Protein backbone atom coordinates (compact mmCIF):
# COMPACT_ATOMS: atom_id res chain seq x y z
CA UNK A 1 0.00 0.00 0.00
CA UNK A 2 2.85 2.38 0.75
CA UNK A 3 4.04 2.17 -2.84
CA UNK A 4 0.63 3.05 -4.15
CA UNK A 5 0.12 6.00 -1.81
CA UNK A 6 3.21 7.82 -3.05
CA UNK A 7 1.97 7.90 -6.63
CA UNK A 8 -1.65 8.39 -5.59
CA UNK A 9 -3.26 10.86 -8.01
CA UNK A 10 -4.44 13.01 -5.14
CA UNK A 11 -0.85 13.84 -4.21
CA UNK A 12 -0.38 15.56 -7.53
CA UNK A 13 -1.58 19.09 -7.80
CA UNK A 14 -4.50 19.73 -10.18
CA UNK A 15 -5.57 16.10 -10.32
CA UNK A 16 -8.41 16.54 -7.84
CA UNK A 17 -11.43 16.64 -10.21
CA UNK A 18 -10.24 13.42 -11.89
CA UNK A 19 -9.97 11.73 -8.50
CA UNK A 20 -13.53 12.67 -7.63
CA UNK A 21 -14.81 11.05 -10.79
CA UNK A 22 -12.64 8.04 -10.16
CA UNK A 23 -13.99 7.63 -6.67
CA UNK A 24 -17.55 8.06 -7.83
CA UNK A 25 -16.94 5.53 -10.58
CA UNK A 26 -15.46 3.01 -8.16
CA UNK A 27 -18.32 3.55 -5.76
CA UNK A 28 -20.96 3.04 -8.43
CA UNK A 29 -19.17 -0.01 -9.79
CA UNK A 30 -19.03 -1.57 -6.34
CA UNK A 31 -22.49 -0.63 -5.18
CA UNK A 32 -24.45 -1.22 -8.34
CA UNK A 33 -22.61 -4.00 -10.14
CA UNK A 34 -20.06 -5.97 -8.19
CA UNK A 35 -21.75 -6.35 -4.83
CA UNK A 36 -25.22 -7.21 -6.19
CA UNK A 37 -23.60 -9.79 -8.47
CA UNK A 38 -21.60 -11.18 -5.56
CA UNK A 39 -24.73 -11.32 -3.41
CA UNK A 40 -26.68 -13.12 -6.10
CA UNK A 41 -23.75 -15.44 -6.73
CA UNK A 42 -23.36 -16.25 -3.05
CA UNK A 43 -27.06 -17.07 -2.68
CA UNK A 44 -26.96 -19.19 -5.83
CA UNK A 45 -23.86 -20.98 -4.59
CA UNK A 46 -25.59 -21.61 -1.28
CA UNK A 47 -28.62 -23.04 -3.10
CA UNK A 48 -26.48 -25.26 -5.30
CA UNK A 49 -24.52 -26.43 -2.28
CA UNK A 50 -27.71 -27.44 -0.48
CA UNK A 51 -29.03 -29.14 -3.59
CA UNK A 52 -25.85 -31.13 -4.16
CA UNK A 53 -25.77 -32.17 -0.53
CA UNK A 54 -29.37 -33.31 -0.93
CA UNK A 55 -28.41 -35.38 -3.95
CA UNK A 56 -25.34 -36.86 -2.32
CA UNK A 57 -26.06 -37.26 1.38
CA UNK A 58 -29.10 -35.63 2.87
CA UNK A 59 -31.93 -36.68 0.59
CA UNK A 60 -34.90 -34.41 0.02
CA UNK A 61 -35.62 -31.92 2.84
CA UNK A 62 -37.74 -33.27 5.67
Amino acid at each position, binding site marked *: *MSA*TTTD*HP*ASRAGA*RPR*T*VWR*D*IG*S*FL*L*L*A*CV*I*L*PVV*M*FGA*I*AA*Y*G*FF*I*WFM*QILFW*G*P*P*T
Partner: protein
Amino acid sequence: MIRKTLRATRDLFLKPSVSIGLGILVTGGFIAGAVSWQGFNTAMEQTNKEEFCLSCHTMRDNMLPELQKTVHWSNRSGVRAECQDCHVPHEFTDKIARKMQASREVWGQIVGTIGTREKFEEHRIVLARREWARMEANDSRECRNCHDYGDMDINLMRPTSQVAMRAAAERDESCISCHKGIAHHLPDLKGSHNPAFDTLVSAASSTRVQADGAYYAVLPHKIYADPGLTQEIGSLEVAAKVRMLESNADAQRVELDLWRKNKGFGRVWYSNFGLNITSAILSKEVSRDETLVSVLDTREDPATGLEWQNVKAEVWMPTDSLIDSPEEIWEIARASYNQQCSTCHRQPEEAHFGANSWPAQFGGMVGFTSMDDDTAKMVLKYLQKHSSDFIETAHGGDPTKGVIQSARP
Protein backbone atom coordinates in the same frame (compact mmCIF):
# COMPACT_ATOMS: atom_id res chain seq x y z
CA MET B 1 -3.42 -9.79 -16.60
CA ILE B 2 -4.54 -11.77 -13.55
CA ARG B 3 -2.23 -9.78 -11.31
CA LYS B 4 -3.60 -6.58 -12.75
CA THR B 5 -7.17 -7.61 -12.02
CA LEU B 6 -6.17 -8.69 -8.53
CA ARG B 7 -4.49 -5.39 -7.87
CA ALA B 8 -7.48 -3.46 -9.25
CA THR B 9 -9.80 -5.45 -7.02
CA ARG B 10 -7.61 -4.84 -4.02
CA ASP B 11 -7.48 -1.14 -4.72
CA LEU B 12 -11.21 -1.04 -5.20
CA PHE B 13 -11.80 -2.49 -1.77
CA LEU B 14 -8.86 -1.27 0.29
CA LYS B 15 -7.85 2.11 -1.06
CA PRO B 16 -9.65 4.81 0.89
CA SER B 17 -11.62 7.32 -1.03
CA VAL B 18 -9.95 10.71 -0.95
CA SER B 19 -12.73 12.84 -2.24
CA ILE B 20 -16.05 11.40 -1.11
CA GLY B 21 -17.06 11.73 2.49
CA LEU B 22 -17.50 8.64 4.63
CA GLY B 23 -21.12 9.53 5.41
CA ILE B 24 -22.00 9.80 1.74
CA LEU B 25 -20.29 6.49 1.00
CA VAL B 26 -22.10 4.69 3.81
CA THR B 27 -25.43 6.24 2.90
CA GLY B 28 -24.93 5.31 -0.74
CA GLY B 29 -23.95 1.78 0.23
CA PHE B 30 -26.93 1.55 2.54
CA ILE B 31 -29.32 2.59 -0.18
CA ALA B 32 -27.70 0.32 -2.74
CA GLY B 33 -27.95 -2.57 -0.29
CA ALA B 34 -31.59 -1.92 0.39
CA VAL B 35 -32.35 -1.65 -3.31
CA SER B 36 -30.44 -4.87 -4.10
CA TRP B 37 -32.20 -6.82 -1.38
CA GLN B 38 -35.56 -5.53 -2.51
CA GLY B 39 -34.60 -6.43 -6.07
CA PHE B 40 -33.66 -9.91 -4.97
CA ASN B 41 -36.94 -10.38 -3.15
CA THR B 42 -38.88 -9.08 -6.12
CA ALA B 43 -37.07 -11.55 -8.35
CA MET B 44 -37.88 -14.35 -5.92
CA GLU B 45 -41.51 -13.31 -5.93
CA GLN B 46 -41.71 -12.97 -9.67
CA THR B 47 -40.26 -16.43 -10.19
CA ASN B 48 -42.73 -17.76 -7.64
CA LYS B 49 -45.79 -16.90 -9.67
CA GLU B 50 -48.03 -19.07 -11.74
CA GLU B 51 -47.54 -16.80 -14.74
CA PHE B 52 -43.83 -17.42 -14.51
CA CYS B 53 -44.25 -21.21 -14.43
CA LEU B 54 -46.70 -21.10 -17.30
CA SER B 55 -44.37 -19.00 -19.43
CA CYS B 56 -42.70 -22.25 -20.48
CA HIS B 57 -44.76 -24.05 -23.09
CA THR B 58 -44.14 -27.44 -21.45
CA MET B 59 -45.99 -26.24 -18.38
CA ARG B 60 -48.72 -24.43 -20.27
CA ASP B 61 -49.38 -27.32 -22.63
CA ASN B 62 -49.05 -30.24 -20.24
CA MET B 63 -49.59 -29.32 -16.64
CA LEU B 64 -52.15 -26.53 -16.88
CA PRO B 65 -54.94 -28.34 -18.78
CA GLU B 66 -54.64 -31.27 -16.39
CA LEU B 67 -54.80 -29.08 -13.32
CA GLN B 68 -57.76 -27.19 -14.72
CA LYS B 69 -59.91 -30.30 -14.50
CA THR B 70 -59.27 -30.81 -10.81
CA VAL B 71 -60.73 -29.41 -7.62
CA HIS B 72 -57.47 -27.63 -6.97
CA TRP B 73 -58.24 -25.32 -9.88
CA SER B 74 -61.89 -24.54 -9.43
CA ASN B 75 -64.20 -25.34 -6.56
CA ARG B 76 -67.16 -23.86 -4.76
CA SER B 77 -65.12 -22.07 -2.12
CA GLY B 78 -62.91 -20.21 -4.57
CA VAL B 79 -59.62 -21.12 -2.96
CA ARG B 80 -57.17 -22.17 -5.57
CA ALA B 81 -53.77 -23.85 -5.46
CA GLU B 82 -51.23 -22.38 -7.82
CA CYS B 83 -48.08 -24.13 -9.03
CA GLN B 84 -45.81 -22.70 -6.37
CA ASP B 85 -48.19 -23.52 -3.51
CA CYS B 86 -47.47 -27.21 -3.96
CA HIS B 87 -44.15 -27.30 -5.75
CA VAL B 88 -41.96 -24.69 -4.06
CA PRO B 89 -40.92 -25.11 -0.43
CA HIS B 90 -41.76 -22.11 1.70
CA GLU B 91 -38.66 -21.96 3.92
CA PHE B 92 -35.73 -19.89 2.70
CA THR B 93 -33.05 -22.57 2.48
CA ASP B 94 -35.21 -25.22 0.84
CA LYS B 95 -36.69 -22.61 -1.43
CA ILE B 96 -33.29 -21.40 -2.63
CA ALA B 97 -32.17 -25.00 -3.17
CA ARG B 98 -35.35 -25.64 -5.16
CA LYS B 99 -34.78 -22.52 -7.25
CA MET B 100 -31.30 -23.73 -8.09
CA GLN B 101 -32.69 -27.14 -8.97
CA ALA B 102 -34.75 -25.30 -11.52
CA SER B 103 -31.55 -24.87 -13.51
CA ARG B 104 -32.14 -28.47 -14.54
CA GLU B 105 -35.60 -27.52 -15.73
CA VAL B 106 -34.25 -24.54 -17.65
CA TRP B 107 -31.72 -26.84 -19.27
CA GLY B 108 -34.52 -29.27 -20.13
CA GLN B 109 -36.50 -26.46 -21.72
CA ILE B 110 -33.48 -25.39 -23.80
CA VAL B 111 -32.62 -28.84 -25.13
CA GLY B 112 -36.26 -29.89 -25.30
CA THR B 113 -36.15 -32.98 -23.08
CA ILE B 114 -39.91 -32.81 -22.69
CA GLY B 115 -40.51 -30.56 -25.68
CA THR B 116 -43.47 -32.54 -27.01
CA ARG B 117 -46.48 -34.17 -25.40
CA GLU B 118 -45.11 -37.62 -26.27
CA LYS B 119 -41.71 -36.90 -24.75
CA PHE B 120 -43.42 -35.46 -21.72
CA GLU B 121 -45.61 -38.53 -21.24
CA GLU B 122 -42.57 -40.74 -21.59
CA HIS B 123 -40.75 -38.71 -18.99
CA ARG B 124 -43.64 -38.19 -16.64
CA ILE B 125 -42.82 -41.13 -14.42
CA VAL B 126 -39.35 -39.74 -13.74
CA LEU B 127 -40.69 -36.32 -12.90
CA ALA B 128 -43.51 -37.75 -10.80
CA ARG B 129 -41.21 -40.02 -8.81
CA ARG B 130 -38.96 -37.05 -8.04
CA GLU B 131 -41.88 -35.01 -6.77
CA TRP B 132 -43.35 -37.92 -4.82
CA ALA B 133 -40.03 -38.53 -3.13
CA ARG B 134 -39.83 -34.87 -2.17
CA MET B 135 -43.32 -34.83 -0.71
CA GLU B 136 -42.84 -38.12 1.05
CA ALA B 137 -39.67 -36.79 2.66
CA ASN B 138 -41.22 -33.59 3.93
CA ASP B 139 -44.41 -35.35 5.00
CA SER B 140 -46.52 -33.52 2.40
CA ARG B 141 -45.76 -30.20 4.00
CA GLU B 142 -47.03 -28.20 1.05
CA CYS B 143 -50.42 -29.94 1.25
CA ARG B 144 -50.53 -29.25 4.95
CA ASN B 145 -50.08 -25.54 4.41
CA CYS B 146 -53.79 -25.60 3.58
CA HIS B 147 -55.07 -28.98 4.76
CA ASP B 148 -54.96 -30.15 8.35
CA TYR B 149 -56.19 -33.42 9.81
CA GLY B 150 -57.27 -31.57 12.94
CA ASP B 151 -59.58 -29.24 11.02
CA MET B 152 -61.23 -31.88 8.87
CA ASP B 153 -64.80 -32.82 9.64
CA ILE B 154 -64.49 -36.42 8.69
CA ASN B 155 -68.24 -36.94 9.18
CA LEU B 156 -68.93 -34.77 6.16
CA MET B 157 -66.96 -37.08 3.90
CA ARG B 158 -68.35 -39.91 1.85
CA PRO B 159 -68.63 -43.06 3.95
CA THR B 160 -65.91 -44.81 1.97
CA SER B 161 -63.56 -41.89 2.47
CA GLN B 162 -64.34 -41.73 6.16
CA VAL B 163 -62.83 -45.13 6.81
CA ALA B 164 -59.61 -44.33 5.02
CA MET B 165 -59.30 -40.79 6.37
CA ARG B 166 -59.94 -41.76 9.99
CA ALA B 167 -57.17 -44.32 9.84
CA ALA B 168 -54.87 -41.91 8.03
CA ALA B 169 -55.50 -39.11 10.53
CA GLU B 170 -54.76 -41.45 13.38
CA ARG B 171 -51.39 -42.32 11.90
CA ASP B 172 -50.80 -38.75 10.68
CA GLU B 173 -50.20 -40.31 7.29
CA SER B 174 -48.47 -38.22 4.65
CA CYS B 175 -51.08 -37.01 2.15
CA ILE B 176 -49.12 -38.01 -0.93
CA SER B 177 -49.05 -41.67 0.15
CA CYS B 178 -52.62 -42.05 -1.07
CA HIS B 179 -53.37 -38.93 -3.08
CA LYS B 180 -50.96 -39.32 -5.97
CA GLY B 181 -52.26 -37.92 -9.22
CA ILE B 182 -54.63 -35.54 -7.48
CA ALA B 183 -53.66 -32.46 -9.48
CA HIS B 184 -52.07 -33.92 -12.59
CA HIS B 185 -52.56 -37.17 -14.45
CA LEU B 186 -50.83 -40.21 -13.07
CA PRO B 187 -47.88 -41.40 -15.09
CA ASP B 188 -48.52 -44.28 -17.41
CA LEU B 189 -46.93 -46.97 -15.33
CA LYS B 190 -47.03 -49.57 -18.05
CA GLY B 191 -43.55 -50.15 -19.35
CA SER B 192 -42.03 -47.98 -16.68
CA HIS B 193 -39.11 -49.31 -14.84
CA ASN B 194 -38.82 -50.22 -11.20
CA PRO B 195 -35.26 -49.35 -10.14
CA ALA B 196 -35.24 -52.35 -7.78
CA PHE B 197 -35.09 -54.59 -10.83
CA ASP B 198 -31.59 -53.36 -11.58
CA THR B 199 -30.21 -55.26 -8.62
CA LEU B 200 -31.96 -58.40 -9.85
CA VAL B 201 -30.57 -57.98 -13.32
CA SER B 202 -27.07 -57.53 -12.00
CA ALA B 203 -27.53 -60.55 -9.72
CA ALA B 204 -28.60 -62.51 -12.77
CA SER B 205 -25.60 -61.47 -14.81
CA SER B 206 -23.27 -62.65 -12.07
CA THR B 207 -25.05 -65.97 -11.61
CA ARG B 208 -23.03 -68.90 -12.96
CA VAL B 209 -25.46 -71.41 -14.37
CA GLN B 210 -24.73 -75.10 -14.22
CA ALA B 211 -26.38 -77.86 -16.18
CA ASP B 212 -29.19 -79.58 -14.32
CA GLY B 213 -29.49 -76.76 -11.78
CA ALA B 214 -32.81 -75.10 -10.93
CA TYR B 215 -33.08 -71.39 -11.71
CA TYR B 216 -35.63 -68.62 -11.60
CA ALA B 217 -36.37 -65.93 -14.16
CA VAL B 218 -35.53 -62.49 -12.75
CA LEU B 219 -37.77 -60.64 -15.15
CA PRO B 220 -40.36 -61.64 -17.71
CA HIS B 221 -38.42 -63.08 -20.64
CA LYS B 222 -39.22 -64.17 -24.14
CA ILE B 223 -38.59 -67.81 -24.98
CA TYR B 224 -37.56 -69.24 -28.33
CA ALA B 225 -37.53 -72.52 -30.20
CA ASP B 226 -33.99 -72.17 -31.58
CA PRO B 227 -30.56 -71.31 -30.14
CA GLY B 228 -30.33 -68.29 -32.46
CA LEU B 229 -33.27 -66.79 -30.57
CA THR B 230 -35.19 -66.00 -33.73
CA GLN B 231 -38.38 -68.05 -33.45
CA GLU B 232 -40.27 -66.62 -30.55
CA ILE B 233 -42.69 -69.09 -28.99
CA GLY B 234 -43.86 -67.31 -25.88
CA SER B 235 -42.72 -65.75 -22.66
CA LEU B 236 -41.63 -66.74 -19.21
CA GLU B 237 -43.03 -64.88 -16.22
CA VAL B 238 -40.98 -63.44 -13.40
CA ALA B 239 -39.79 -66.03 -10.85
CA ALA B 240 -40.75 -68.91 -13.14
CA LYS B 241 -38.69 -71.98 -12.30
CA VAL B 242 -36.65 -73.68 -15.00
CA ARG B 243 -34.06 -76.46 -15.15
CA MET B 244 -30.82 -75.67 -16.95
CA LEU B 245 -29.88 -77.99 -19.79
CA GLU B 246 -27.09 -76.22 -21.60
CA SER B 247 -25.79 -72.74 -21.99
CA ASN B 248 -23.58 -70.94 -24.50
CA ALA B 249 -22.46 -67.36 -24.85
CA ASP B 250 -25.80 -65.79 -25.80
CA ALA B 251 -28.44 -68.40 -25.24
CA GLN B 252 -29.34 -71.15 -22.87
CA ARG B 253 -31.59 -74.17 -23.24
CA VAL B 254 -33.88 -74.70 -20.29
CA GLU B 255 -36.55 -77.18 -19.41
CA LEU B 256 -39.98 -76.06 -18.27
CA ASP B 257 -41.84 -78.47 -16.05
CA LEU B 258 -45.25 -76.93 -15.48
CA TRP B 259 -48.99 -77.52 -15.41
CA ARG B 260 -51.75 -76.41 -17.70
CA LYS B 261 -55.49 -76.76 -18.00
CA ASN B 262 -56.31 -79.16 -20.76
CA LYS B 263 -58.74 -76.80 -22.37
CA GLY B 264 -58.53 -74.70 -25.54
CA PHE B 265 -54.97 -74.17 -26.68
CA GLY B 266 -53.50 -74.77 -23.25
CA ARG B 267 -51.26 -71.77 -23.73
CA VAL B 268 -51.01 -70.65 -20.15
CA TRP B 269 -48.74 -72.77 -18.01
CA TYR B 270 -48.88 -72.73 -14.25
CA SER B 271 -46.27 -73.59 -11.67
CA ASN B 272 -48.40 -75.94 -9.56
CA PHE B 273 -51.25 -78.35 -10.08
CA GLY B 274 -54.61 -76.71 -9.49
CA LEU B 275 -53.16 -73.27 -8.71
CA ASN B 276 -53.47 -70.34 -11.09
CA ILE B 277 -49.90 -69.15 -10.68
CA THR B 278 -48.85 -68.28 -14.20
CA SER B 279 -45.31 -69.23 -15.06
CA ALA B 280 -45.22 -69.19 -18.84
CA ILE B 281 -47.41 -68.25 -21.76
CA LEU B 282 -46.85 -70.00 -25.07
CA SER B 283 -48.03 -68.88 -28.45
CA LYS B 284 -50.96 -70.91 -29.68
CA GLU B 285 -49.03 -72.27 -32.68
CA VAL B 286 -46.73 -74.27 -30.44
CA SER B 287 -48.74 -74.92 -27.30
CA ARG B 288 -50.22 -78.09 -28.80
CA ASP B 289 -47.13 -79.00 -30.81
CA GLU B 290 -46.15 -82.45 -29.66
CA THR B 291 -42.61 -82.17 -30.96
CA LEU B 292 -42.05 -79.41 -28.43
CA VAL B 293 -44.46 -80.15 -25.62
CA SER B 294 -44.67 -83.51 -23.91
CA VAL B 295 -47.46 -84.40 -21.51
CA LEU B 296 -46.21 -86.32 -18.49
CA ASP B 297 -49.27 -86.64 -16.33
CA THR B 298 -52.96 -85.87 -16.40
CA ARG B 299 -55.08 -85.23 -13.32
CA GLU B 300 -58.49 -83.84 -12.64
CA ASP B 301 -58.84 -80.93 -10.26
CA PRO B 302 -61.71 -81.97 -7.98
CA ALA B 303 -62.61 -78.35 -7.20
CA THR B 304 -63.33 -77.35 -10.77
CA GLY B 305 -63.62 -80.65 -12.60
CA LEU B 306 -61.00 -79.38 -15.03
CA GLU B 307 -58.34 -81.69 -16.33
CA TRP B 308 -54.80 -80.53 -15.65
CA GLN B 309 -51.75 -81.73 -17.52
CA ASN B 310 -48.19 -81.83 -16.31
CA VAL B 311 -46.31 -80.56 -19.34
CA LYS B 312 -42.68 -80.33 -20.21
CA ALA B 313 -40.88 -78.34 -22.90
CA GLU B 314 -37.32 -77.46 -23.79
CA VAL B 315 -36.92 -73.88 -24.86
CA TRP B 316 -34.18 -71.35 -25.52
CA MET B 317 -33.81 -68.04 -23.77
CA PRO B 318 -31.19 -65.30 -23.51
CA THR B 319 -28.42 -65.70 -20.93
CA ASP B 320 -28.03 -63.54 -17.83
CA SER B 321 -31.72 -63.82 -17.12
CA LEU B 322 -31.79 -66.35 -14.28
CA ILE B 323 -30.84 -66.48 -10.63
CA ASP B 324 -30.47 -69.53 -8.44
CA SER B 325 -32.89 -68.60 -5.68
CA PRO B 326 -36.21 -66.73 -5.86
CA GLU B 327 -35.60 -65.20 -2.43
CA GLU B 328 -34.09 -62.04 -3.87
CA ILE B 329 -37.13 -61.56 -6.04
CA TRP B 330 -39.44 -62.14 -3.10
CA GLU B 331 -37.55 -59.63 -1.03
CA ILE B 332 -38.18 -56.89 -3.54
CA ALA B 333 -41.78 -57.98 -3.96
CA ARG B 334 -42.29 -58.07 -0.20
CA ALA B 335 -40.92 -54.56 0.15
CA SER B 336 -43.21 -53.28 -2.60
CA TYR B 337 -46.19 -55.07 -1.08
CA ASN B 338 -45.57 -53.75 2.41
CA GLN B 339 -44.86 -50.25 1.30
CA GLN B 340 -47.53 -49.74 -1.33
CA CYS B 341 -50.42 -51.50 0.35
CA SER B 342 -49.86 -50.35 3.90
CA THR B 343 -50.12 -46.67 3.02
CA CYS B 344 -53.90 -46.86 2.79
CA HIS B 345 -54.76 -49.85 4.96
CA ARG B 346 -53.19 -52.63 6.92
CA GLN B 347 -52.21 -55.12 4.26
CA PRO B 348 -53.51 -58.65 4.76
CA GLU B 349 -51.04 -61.35 5.57
CA GLU B 350 -49.77 -63.17 2.52
CA ALA B 351 -51.32 -66.39 3.77
CA HIS B 352 -54.68 -64.76 4.40
CA PHE B 353 -55.83 -65.88 0.96
CA GLY B 354 -55.22 -68.89 -1.23
CA ALA B 355 -53.18 -68.74 -4.42
CA ASN B 356 -56.38 -68.73 -6.45
CA SER B 357 -58.06 -65.90 -4.54
CA TRP B 358 -55.10 -63.54 -4.62
CA PRO B 359 -55.44 -62.51 -8.29
CA ALA B 360 -58.93 -61.10 -7.74
CA GLN B 361 -58.00 -59.49 -4.42
CA PHE B 362 -54.86 -57.98 -5.83
CA GLY B 363 -56.36 -57.01 -9.17
CA GLY B 364 -59.03 -55.00 -7.39
CA MET B 365 -56.50 -52.99 -5.43
CA VAL B 366 -53.44 -52.60 -7.64
CA GLY B 367 -54.98 -49.62 -9.43
CA PHE B 368 -54.67 -47.60 -6.24
CA THR B 369 -50.93 -48.09 -6.08
CA SER B 370 -48.12 -46.74 -8.19
CA MET B 371 -46.77 -50.16 -9.14
CA ASP B 372 -45.72 -50.59 -12.72
CA ASP B 373 -46.76 -53.66 -14.68
CA ASP B 374 -43.73 -55.77 -13.94
CA THR B 375 -43.76 -54.94 -10.25
CA ALA B 376 -47.46 -55.72 -10.01
CA LYS B 377 -46.92 -59.10 -11.63
CA MET B 378 -44.01 -59.84 -9.35
CA VAL B 379 -45.94 -58.88 -6.23
CA LEU B 380 -48.93 -60.99 -7.26
CA LYS B 381 -46.65 -63.94 -7.82
CA TYR B 382 -45.05 -63.35 -4.45
CA LEU B 383 -48.45 -63.29 -2.76
CA GLN B 384 -49.57 -66.45 -4.53
CA LYS B 385 -46.38 -68.26 -3.72
CA HIS B 386 -46.69 -67.26 -0.07
CA SER B 387 -50.43 -67.81 0.12
CA SER B 388 -52.23 -70.23 2.38
CA ASP B 389 -51.57 -72.98 -0.16
CA PHE B 390 -47.90 -72.88 0.63
CA ILE B 391 -47.53 -71.54 4.10
CA GLU B 392 -48.62 -72.95 7.40
CA THR B 393 -50.23 -70.18 9.45
CA ALA B 394 -53.28 -69.43 11.50
CA HIS B 395 -55.12 -68.86 8.23
CA GLY B 396 -53.55 -71.53 6.15
CA GLY B 397 -53.55 -74.55 8.38
CA ASP B 398 -56.79 -75.84 7.01
CA PRO B 399 -57.33 -79.50 6.14
CA THR B 400 -57.95 -78.75 2.48
CA LYS B 401 -54.49 -77.24 2.11
CA GLY B 402 -52.56 -78.68 -0.76
CA VAL B 403 -55.48 -80.81 -1.82
CA ILE B 404 -58.05 -78.46 -3.23
CA GLN B 405 -58.72 -74.76 -3.02
CA SER B 406 -61.24 -73.65 -0.46
CA ALA B 407 -61.87 -70.29 -2.10
CA ARG B 408 -61.99 -69.55 -5.76
CA PRO B 409 -62.12 -66.14 -7.34
